[in-house]
């Protein structure tokens, strides 16, 4: 056997540390180059201590996204004025100069007229260069319209967090947790923190942590769990309410946590509002003095439960209101509706309560800390719904009952109370400032933009009272309309605007563009990379280029820079960059241009407090371990515990304040198309049974199946992985998605494996092939959401499968603007 050593010796091998940007995990990578060709991509071993141990198949095969011959290599101009996915755009290649000149003229005219008519949209672009640059550009330009994608992901979860504890983001404290109840967070395939959760959950499971996964389809995460609870789609909130009911009935609750950290003891009147003193302080019932008083001193002992009379009026504690609302439910109804046996719900609740060890403390590094080693986790599972905020509120409330929030082994919150205003009633402005209606009367608590709403507003601006009509959009690394519910409607909006698309491949959005600009990939460009924290670590990282396959002169960063310069806005843009990035010690100077690398150096120096940039180039990142104090004592302990402190909103009275503001505005402006009943349901201060009934479920008679979507490991939604030949070859079914159907259901419908079927919802129909499985509820179909590309700019093999988003009903969460990916119902027939 030949050894080949001589050939290998002739090669020049080098390694470059960088950060993967395929998805939002931002894994540390070590790129091996052989004679300057990307030979392999490995995980960066040094990053394992802080985040990822390995990398996923997308990261491993990332060079094939960069080397993709179907990438866009030159600016393109549309010659066919008619837009549509069935139209040939008639592309002609143009020079960069012509492209910039055309775009600048268009932008200049809009800016002089009304800068709000320009809309910037990005998705993954946020992570390629950081959203601070587009934010700085739009601020310098003068438009409020910069729209990201979070309502396609988990925005409702964030907003529920914000309303409840003043900021968003959390992780189960897996290293200390003994019982993880996971509502559909698929950390083995997708998910935001997947590459940390995967190895920590696996290790914890080996040491005895029990994992229970609640979801209608057995994902890989459920497959590796101790138990799978196949809940009926949309009914998980009922399961949580049922568990809360048992916890309260059995007195398996953390009274200390509820009274000292939350507003559960606050007295509520019959209108649902808090009893307040003349200073506006909410009052509790003091056990000692038997009076309604503000919880202002440690001498006061608030009653958690009960009904009390104050000034001849009846009040209940917020906790009592919740307990009473749960008493309208019964085990049998919950079990039937959720499709989970009552005995199972009771057993899970008992396990959770037992494992929580309510009242226990533990000493870590000399500190005595609350110990509740149970956590409830979710990502899109509870969030991607019409009532996503209420769904996750239910999850938070159960954890408040257990006292596991920010306890050792519990749910570790991120930046608690960073923005107290989130816990106040929303202003609910009208007319809306932004085209996506964020924080307007339509989506009053939407603080993460409303990705799917831009198209709807553009199609009917007057319906929403928007005082201007958008004329131009730039889409940066997003396939926005393709990735929302009811997507075909979304595409119609692109016929109404002048569109510029910056991307690496001809996405469906690019097919609707007037001008397309090629971007560099994450292996070809500089960036101060976003990173993921964990409960015990955080780190700062960079991305650095290792190639430039098609010798492209620009990436997202330099395109924005060029536009700002040509618009005469460069110095305003630089000032905004300094502001948005918070550059105090290392600001960019006005009056000169910067390369991406130069800017990354400034950002690195600022974020690492002056660590040499050569360190970043050599190591790719700089990490830090957090102390017990940082992890456990700076959150709810510091912000909410005890008298005289703000409290977590067990009872979200602020939402009633929001409802009040909406009603006043509706009256004032005589708005006709706001259904106040819908807002009353969505803005309930407590999660209720009604939140398990999204619109499609109320009209299910002719649609026997629920249809849910999910993510597979080997694809991103934007389309840029659809041409990756390694990913498409990961098994015989990797290049196509299927309609997952329970085998027994298939037998009843006389369907065989791979039969062609049509799925029909009230929005439309799609065809695809079935895959028979035992791993799904008999009343549910599941289709992964990142196949069925339509773009003519992709080869046939990249266009296989089902575009399921195109037939999902769109009923955005009125609180957060979250898109409703998991609420639709459908019919199925053999083709």
């Amino acid at each position, binding site marked *: 056997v*030949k050894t080949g050593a001589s050939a*290998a010796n002739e090669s020049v091998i080098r390694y470059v540390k960088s950060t993967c940007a395929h998805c939002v995990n931002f894994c540390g990578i070590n790129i091996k180059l052989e004679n300057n060709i990307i030979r392999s991509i*490995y995980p960066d071993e040094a990053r394992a201590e802080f985040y990822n141990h390995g*990398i996923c198949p997308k990261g491993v095969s990332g060079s094939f996204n960069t080397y993709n*011959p179907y990438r866009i290599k030159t600016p393109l101009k549309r010659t066919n004025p008619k837009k549509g996915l069935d139209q040939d755009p008639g592309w002609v290649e143009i020079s960069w100069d012509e492209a910039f000149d055309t775009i600048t003229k268009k932008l200049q005219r809009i800016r002089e007229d009304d800068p709000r008519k320009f809309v910037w949209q990005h998705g993954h672009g946020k992570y390629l260069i950081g959203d601070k640059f587009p934010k700085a550009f739009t601020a310098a330009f003068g438009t409020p319209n910069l729209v990201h994608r979070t309502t396609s992901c988990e925005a409702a979860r964030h907003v529920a967090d914000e309303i409840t504890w003043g900021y968003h983001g959390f992780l189960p404290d897996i290293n200390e947790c003994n019982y993880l109840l996971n509502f559909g967070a698929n950390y083995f395939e997708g998910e935001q923190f997947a590459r940390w959760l995967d190895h920590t959950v696996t290790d914890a499971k080996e040491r005895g942590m029990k994992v229970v996964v609640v979801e209608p389809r057995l994902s890989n995460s459920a497959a590796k769990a101790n138990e799978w609870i196949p809940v009926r789609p949309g009914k998980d909130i009922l399961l949580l309410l049922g568990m809360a009911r048992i916890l309260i009935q059995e007195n398996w609750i953390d009274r200390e946590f509820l009274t000292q950290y939350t507003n559960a003891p606050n007295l509520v009147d019959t209108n649902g509002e808090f009893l307040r003193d003349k200073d506006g302080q909410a009052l509790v019932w003091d056990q000692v003095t038997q009076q309604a008083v503000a919880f202002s001193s440690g001498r006061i002992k608030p009653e958690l439960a009960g009904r009390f009379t104050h000034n001849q009026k009846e009040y209940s504690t917020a906790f009592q209101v919740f307990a009473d609302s749960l008493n309208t439910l019964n085990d049998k109804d919950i079990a039937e509706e959720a499709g989970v046996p009552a005995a199972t719900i009771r057993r899970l609740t008992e396990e959770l309560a037992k494992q929580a060890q309510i009242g226990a403390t533990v000493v870590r590094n000399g500190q005595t800390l609350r110990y509740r080693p149970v956590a409830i986790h979710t990502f899109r599972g509870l969030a991607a719904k019409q009532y996503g905020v209420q769904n996750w509120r239910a999850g938070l409330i159960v954890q408040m009952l257990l006292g596991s929030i920010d306890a050792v082994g519990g749910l570790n919150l991120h930046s608690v109370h960073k923005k107290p205003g989130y816990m106040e009633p929303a202003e609910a402005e009208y007319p809306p400032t932004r085209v996506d209606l964020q924080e307007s009367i339509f989506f009053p608590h939407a603080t993460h933009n409303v990705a799917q709403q831009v198209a709807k507003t553009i199609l009917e601006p007057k319906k929403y009272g928007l005082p201007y009509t958008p004329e131009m959009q730039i889409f940066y690394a997003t396939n926005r309309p393709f990735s929302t519910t009811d997507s075909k409607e979304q595409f119609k909006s692109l016929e109404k605007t002048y569109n510029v698309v910056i991307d690496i491949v001809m996405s469906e959005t690019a097919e609707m563009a007037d001008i397309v600009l090629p971007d560099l990939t994450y292996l070809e460009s500089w960036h101060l990379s976003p990173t993921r924290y964990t409960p015990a670590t955080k780190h700062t990282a960079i991305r650095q280029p290792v190639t430039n396959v098609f010798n492209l002169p620009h990436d997202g960063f330099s395109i924005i820079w060029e536009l700002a310069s040509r618009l005469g806005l460069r110095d305003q843009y630089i000032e905004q960059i300094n502001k948005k990035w918070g550059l105090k010690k290392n600001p960019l100077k006005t009056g000169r241009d910067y390369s991406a690398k130069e800017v990354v150096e400034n950002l690195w120096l600022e974020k690492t407090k002056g660590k040499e940039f050569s360190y970043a180039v050599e190591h790719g990142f700089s990490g830090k371990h957090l102390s017990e104090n940082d992890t456990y004592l700076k959150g709810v302990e510091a912000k909410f515990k005890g008298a005289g402190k703000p409290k977590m909103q067990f009872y979200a009275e602020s939402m009633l304040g929001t409802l009040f503001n909406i009603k006043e505005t509706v009256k004032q402006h005589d708005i006709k198309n706001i259904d106040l009943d819908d807002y009353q349901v969505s803005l309930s201060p407590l999660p209720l049974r009604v939140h398990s009934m999204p619109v499609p479920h109320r009209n299910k008679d002719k649609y026997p199946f629920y249809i849910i979507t999910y993510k597979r490991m080997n694809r991103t939604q934007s389309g840029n992985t659809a041409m990756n030949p*390694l990913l498409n070859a990961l098994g015989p079914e990797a290049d196509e998605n299927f309609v997952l159907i329970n085998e027994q259901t298939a037998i009843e419908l006389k369907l065989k494996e791979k039969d062609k079927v049509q799925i029909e919802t009230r929005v439309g129909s799609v065809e695809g092939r079935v895959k028979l499985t035992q791993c799904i509820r008999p009343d549910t179909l599941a289709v992964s959401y990142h196949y069925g590309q339509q773009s003519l700019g992709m*080869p046939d093999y990249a266009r296989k499968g089902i575009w399921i988003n195109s037939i999902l009903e769109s009923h955005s969460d009125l609180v957060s603007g979250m898109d409703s990916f998991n609420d639709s119902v459908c019919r199925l027939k053999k083709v």
Partner: protein
Amino acid sequence: MTKFVRLIDMDRCMGCQACVAACYQENHYTPGSPWNEMIEYEIGTYPHVGKVFGTMGCMHCEDAPCQTVCDAIDVHAISKNEYGVVLVDYDKCIGCGYCDTVCPYNVPQLNKEVTSLYGEDKLSPLETIPQEQRHPTHHKKNNVMEKCTFCWHKLEQAINSNQIDKIGVDPQFTPSCDLVCPVEARFFGDLDDPDSEVSRQIGTKKATQLKKEYGTKPQVYYKLSGGDF
């Protein structure tokens, strides 16, 4: 002596296929002849159902039937080296397929026709690396049998540079599939070294070999996870 072995822990494997993609990337995959494959199947009936994940590549058997049959027909394209690695010499292979017929694990992959990854003769820079600059195990040819080499091109570099102790430890000398696993479900190293991680894992996890009844003595061990495999 040195005997390289792999352990695949199916309890930990989550089916992500990073190891499959890593093999493709590292070993100049061409369509139709994967060297590493994810096997995924369901156990049970709804709602009492589970899924099992595990990957299959060459077992590098101590008594390799593929080598036996290749020798028997006097082709001698398959050999097992002193480190326990079974390799195919593409220049000698006649593509007869006997090795695949006798392999209890259906490992050998006949690369009938080397085709480009993106189709339509569009080549990535990786595919344009000339044969002479590639390791012999990456000289892709039509009608030749291919299979996992334990990333011999990496092991060989460690051996040639007297760094054999770094195999399974240092990324540049470790098979890529074992390197990229996000959940440490794969280990590689010297079974004859009682202190190696792979030895320890095989022992403490009570790992086993597949289809032992064939007497092939595979050098890939599995920690099984319910059901057969």
